[in-house]
């Protein structure tokens, strides 16, 4: 079955996929952090985080978080009574805001490395 996509259903799909990714990441995040009880293991992990590959992973995670947050803000705004007439404009604006904030965030992320 093929079905035509539009910005509303696309926003839903992206929201859903990023949500699952974040839930899975949350499990790993809490589990790993809960095992860092002494300074040496903590610093070991933190040094590992300086690896460029992991930095890129972090940036991607940042993008996933932003996308999920803005999709969530759009849905919440609609639910508390913002007019559904503008839902498409809201989705486009969210996409723009995600790009902008991601670029600004990426700048700060990379400043740490260099």
């Amino acid at each position, binding site marked *: 079955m093929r079905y035509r996509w539009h910005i509303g259903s696309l926003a839903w799909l992206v929201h859903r996929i990023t949500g699952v990714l974040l839930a899975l990441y*949350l499990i790993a995040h*809490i589990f790993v952090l809960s095992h860092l009880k002494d300074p040496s293991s903590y610093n070991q992990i*933190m040094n590992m985080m300086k690896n460029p590959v992991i930095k890129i992973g972090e940036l991607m995670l940042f993008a996933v978080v932003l996308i999920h947050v803005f999709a969530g803000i759009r849905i*919440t705004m609609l639910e508390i009574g913002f007019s559904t007439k503008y839902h498409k404009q809201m989705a486009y604006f969210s996409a723009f805001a995600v790009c902008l904030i991601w670029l600004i965030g990426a700048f*700060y992320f990379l400043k*740490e490395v260099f």
Partner: protein
Amino acid sequence: MWSWLFHRITGVILVAGLLYHFIFMHFMGHDNYSYEAVAQRLKEPSWQFFNIIFLLSALYHGFYGLNGLVSEYIKGNYWKRFMKYVVFIIPIVLAFFGMKIVIF
């Protein structure tokens, strides 16, 4: 209804919390997340409070979402009930692990 409404409320809490979390952990330089700084912060009650709220909100929000996915996508009563238990128990276990680091 309450569970759904709470999903939205925790969502709003998370947006505020994430803002704080990201600024502190990533944008303010290395000093903020060295082991000593983190351990120091975790001793303060206000930070403990923030972390616990943040942790529980994130767990609730995430696993309520997964619970919804189980409702929609998992077919078969037996399998569905099993997955419902899974998405109920995992956050409780994780909450225990998370609490353990917040309250040393």
